[in-house]
């Protein structure tokens, strides 16, 4: 007999269920007054487990105030919550009010919620932060007993996690008895998450509850005709076979690694969709309405397949999905499991998944992912110190709620795990930044946003700064976007301004599953019309997901362990055997560098397996060094597995190109010149509250009225390079955009690990990398001036010499 109250017992019994072990363990933790981390696979009844103690408490001791706060990374909570919370509450007839509060909630409802909060409030970190900026938050949250954080693995080690952690520290002050509960998919190291959840690092205060493992997933690698192509990275060649699988299953999700690939694969599938099965597309750039339509159609079982990206990695669960297809490399075992978890939400039945590798390296990666899943191995999570721009935003929110003293604020901030070791001096700089921008030149003391009074209390200087904060708060900063529209006004979604700028009228691109022709740009809209002409691919900014370190390790071992090869398909086996005969297959701890001539160029291929982002950075840096060494580099290409450079003169001493001092010298210089840092700066400037967000539709006509953060960056770098925001941007650029951790590890040890093989011709292993040349656009070291000169010449040629360059005199 369980420890549930009778009404819950009856409800479980009425459904023919018994509460699961981990659901009861969550209840035990609650009765002991402990916080808890529940780690369980998808389909284990996690959400109900998280809410169960609150339901029991509310049945046993009904209260009218806010009792439980549920925080999810997604706005779209409706489906899951309906199934796991509202239905039980309705069926038991419990007098518990449950409401949501997100950016989409009406202002009437928001105001009402602050006066009369529901017992259970479902929200996001951003909306919670806004709630905490109101003076009445102290009363609203005083009765709070539990905070439940769903999908904590998806955002704890990120800026949104930083914000949530800070919010928890404040909630704990308002409601000292509040318990913290987090729900997570299976993670590599639950201890890290317990530490994050506790705030103060007291692991003993957080019970670890582990759910039972579900049935092992049924994952296979799809090889059309048993062959793996030499090159490519999308699995597009397998469209027909994927279509057959869609036909053979009830509902499938086809995951793609990028939005542009999703568009292409959607086209490919339509081309072979002879039965006209209903297939949809879903990615983050599509219009919200279009996404919601696709989600609704999936929920109702009206779609047979949905082509999707990471936009579906989280949250949205549909019971009827019975197949997940991963197009291209899986990148990591946790990510693969997360995606597979979208299929079949019954623990006792295996989820079914297919991986379609795009080339032979991707085959090895797919096999590595299968092995890792079987071995229960997860990708490591990297927790880093809390971001300073987020802290600045949080301090402004708390200042809006109530006056504070410096010391009390610092003590509270340090109760948030990511900020537990925040130096006092850094805190003061952030406080100064919030007050006046934090400039060494104290020009803005008269414009202070928050002011310290003679009583030692900091207060907001004017109510308009509070309104300004609420309008601009938030952690997600999108690139400047244009809306893609038909002439009749119908919007299809959004593309990055940079991509739109590269389009001219009559250019074509795939978007939202359609081939579109550009008519022109007007204001914030990119006008298009449907066309039957073939299309270019949209490119979306942002770094790519690199192969995880544990999968990379496994692939390294595959190369060196021929005893593994018999389970590979014949062409992969032959490929590795030929490499062994013609070059070498390095030991896992060695770094193979091949050099060879081909068609008048000299190639160098480095098999470092550190992932696309680190390789892209390294390619830039190494070609610079080659330039300095007079090797006349022409360009490079990077993949998740290797980098290839090509030059007019041969590389004879690779070790000299890969020395660790590259990080101290060229790296810093390169990042500062590149657009990476400017992109990072834009984000920290918005989050930190230095500049206001541009709200869609509110931008004034003409761009001259808005200032660009690039210009601010240039001025700041010139006059105050040590400024807090430049430091924050630098941290972001290093961590997220260049993968400097992996780059550093590679360079620190490269000199001792290099095995240089000088070949007469291209090696088998090099082929999948070299075929990327000419596909990836690389303009290494090309100055803007040179591009402008080239553009002028092109224009002049196209215009029949009408615009001859002016000659200097």
């Amino acid at each position, binding site marked *: 007999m369980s420890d549930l109250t009778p009404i819950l017992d009856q409800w479980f019994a009425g459904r023919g269920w018994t509460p699961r072990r981990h659901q009861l363990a969550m209840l035990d933790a609650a009765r002991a007054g402990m916080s808890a981390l529940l780690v369980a696979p998808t389909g284990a009844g996690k959400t109900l487990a998280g809410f169960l103690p609150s339901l029991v408490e509310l049945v046993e001791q009904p209260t009218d105030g806010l009792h439980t706060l549920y925080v999810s990374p997604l706005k779209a909570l409706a489906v899951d919550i309906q199934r796991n919370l509202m239905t039980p509450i309705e069926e038991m007839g419990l007098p518990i009010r449950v409401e949501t509060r997100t950016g989409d909630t009406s202002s009437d409802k928001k105001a009402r919620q602050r006066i009369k909060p529901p017992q259970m409030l479902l929200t996001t970190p951003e909306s919670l932060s806004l709630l905490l900026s109101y003076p009445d938050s102290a009363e609203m949250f005083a009765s709070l007993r539990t905070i439940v954080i769903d999908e904590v693995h998806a955002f704890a080690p990120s800026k949104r996690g930083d914000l949530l952690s800070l919010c928890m520290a404040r909630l704990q002050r308002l409601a000292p008895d509040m318990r913290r509960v987090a729900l997570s998919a299976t993670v590599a190291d639950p201890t890290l998450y317990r530490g994050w959840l506790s705030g103060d690092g007291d692991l003993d205060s957080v019970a670890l509850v582990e759910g039972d493992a579900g049935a092992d997933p049924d994952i296979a690698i799809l090889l059309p005709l048993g062959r793996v192509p030499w090159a490519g990275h999308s699995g597009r060649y397998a469209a027909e076979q994927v279509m057959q699988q869609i036909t053979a299953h009830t509902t499938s999700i086809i995951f793609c690694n990028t939005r542009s690939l999703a568009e292409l694969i959607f086209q490919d599938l339509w081309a072979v969709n002879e039965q006209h099965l209903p297939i949809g597309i879903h990615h983050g750039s599509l219009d919200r309405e279009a996404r919601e339509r696709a989600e609704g159609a999936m929920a109702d079982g009206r779609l047979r397949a949905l082509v999707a990206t990471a936009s579906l990695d989280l949250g949205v669960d549909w019971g009827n999905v019975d197949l997940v297809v991963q197009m291209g490399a899986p990148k990591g075992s946790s990510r693969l499991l997360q995606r597979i978890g979208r299929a079949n939400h019954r623990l006792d039945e295996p989820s079914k998944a297919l991986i379609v590798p795009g080339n032979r390296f991707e085959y090895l990666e797919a096999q590595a992912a299968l092995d890792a899943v079987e071995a229960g191995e997860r990708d490591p999570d990297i927790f880093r110190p809390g971001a300073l721009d987020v802290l600045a935003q949080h301090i402004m929110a708390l200042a809006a709620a109530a006056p504070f003293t410096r010391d009390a604020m610092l003590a509270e901030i340090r109760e948030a795990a990511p900020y537990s070791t925040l130096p006092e001096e850094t805190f003061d700089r952030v406080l100064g930044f919030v007050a006046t921008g934090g400039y060494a030149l104290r020009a803005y003391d008269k414009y202070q946003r928050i002011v310290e009074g003679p009583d030692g209390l900091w207060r907001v200087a004017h109510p308009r700064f509070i309104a300004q904060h609420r309008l601009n708060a938030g952690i997600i900063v999108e690139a400047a976007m244009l809306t893609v529209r038909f002439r009749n006004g119908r919007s299809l979604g959004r593309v990055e301004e940079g991509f739109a700028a590269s389009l001219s009228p009559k250019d074509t691109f795939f978007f939202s599953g359609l081939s579109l022709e550009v008519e022109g740009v007007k204001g914030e809209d990119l006008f298009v019309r449907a066309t039957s002409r073939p299309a270019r691919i949209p490119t979306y900014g942002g770094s790519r997901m690199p192969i995880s370190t544990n999968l990379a390790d496994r692939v390294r071992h595959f190369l060196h362990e021929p005893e593994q090869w018999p389970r590979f398909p014949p062409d992969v086996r032959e490929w590795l055997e030929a490499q062994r005969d013609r070059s070498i297959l390095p030991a896992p701890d060695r770094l193979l560098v091949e050099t060879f001539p081909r068609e008048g160029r000299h190639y160098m291929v480095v098999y470092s397996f550190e992932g696309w982002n680190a390789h892209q950075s390294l390619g830039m840096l190494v070609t610079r060094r080659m330039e300095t060494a007079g090797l006349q580099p022409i360009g490079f290409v990077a993949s998740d597995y290797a980098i290839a450079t090509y030059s007019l003169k041969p590389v004879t001493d690779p070790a000299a190109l890969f020395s660790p001092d590259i990080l101290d010298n060229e790296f810093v210089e390169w990042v500062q010149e590149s657009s990476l840092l400017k992109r990072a700066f834009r984000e920290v400037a918005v989050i930190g509250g230095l500049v206001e967000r541009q709200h869609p539709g509110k931008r004034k006509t003409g761009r*001259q009225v808005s*200032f660009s953060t690039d210009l601010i960056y*240039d*001025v700041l770098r010139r006059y105050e390079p040590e400024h807090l925001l430049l430091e924050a941007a630098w941290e972001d650029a290093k961590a997220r955009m260049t993968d400097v951790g992996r780059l550093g590890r590679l360079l620190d040890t490269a000199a001792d690990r290099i095995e240089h093989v000088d070949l007469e011709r291209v090696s088998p292993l090099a082929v999948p990398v070299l075929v990327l040349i000419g596909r990836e656009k690389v*303009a290494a070291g090309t100055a803007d001036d040179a591009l402008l*000169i080239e553009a002028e010449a092109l224009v002049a040629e196209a215009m029949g010499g009408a615009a001859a360059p002016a000659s200097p005199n």
Partner: protein
Amino acid sequence: MVRFSFAGVELAALVPGALGWPARRALLVADLHLEKASFYAAGGQMLPPYDTAATLRDLAALIESTDAREVWCLGDSFHDAKGCERLADDARALLRGLTARTQWTWISGNHDVAAVRLADHCGGHVVDEAEVDGLLLRHEADPCETRPELSGHFHPKLRLSLRGRNVARRCFVATATKLILPAFGALTGGLDAGHPVIRAAIAGRPAEALIPLADRLLRFPIAA
């Protein structure tokens, strides 16, 4: 410095986005937008308080390197009417030094038209517009004007993309009788050279975007 001919007058396009007039030893700049950052700071957006210093330092260097005797600022020299009152002491000293050393004229723009005490604060003298050796100098181009005219106001910028890279650069916009200068201020954004409001200002006439490099002047026809 690259010289070119405009309406029969030899001018020089300077890399930072300024115009030289060798025959008069004159320097022309548009849209300095001094004290833009402090304007926003007063509203709660604490932009770096270095834009005035950066702009004036660049301008002083240019006056020095071109040995200019005359300086013409084609309007919107300050971001707002009170901007000249907010100048920090050292910036004010630098600016007064420059206006004292040269024949300095402030042409009023839409942002600073109400700055009645501009000359008191900064030196130089203020006019609405001027005619100099047959060229009209004003803030905003007049589409109906038939005489040769130099102006600012629009902050023209050329954006183009080649081989997957986007480049944006401040540029001049030139027709046979109109020359629109790029903005010179450190914190001034840009408006696409082909933007409809610029096309309207030049009355839809054929135009080129001019981008000076160190040793040549690039010309890009602006699509009609």
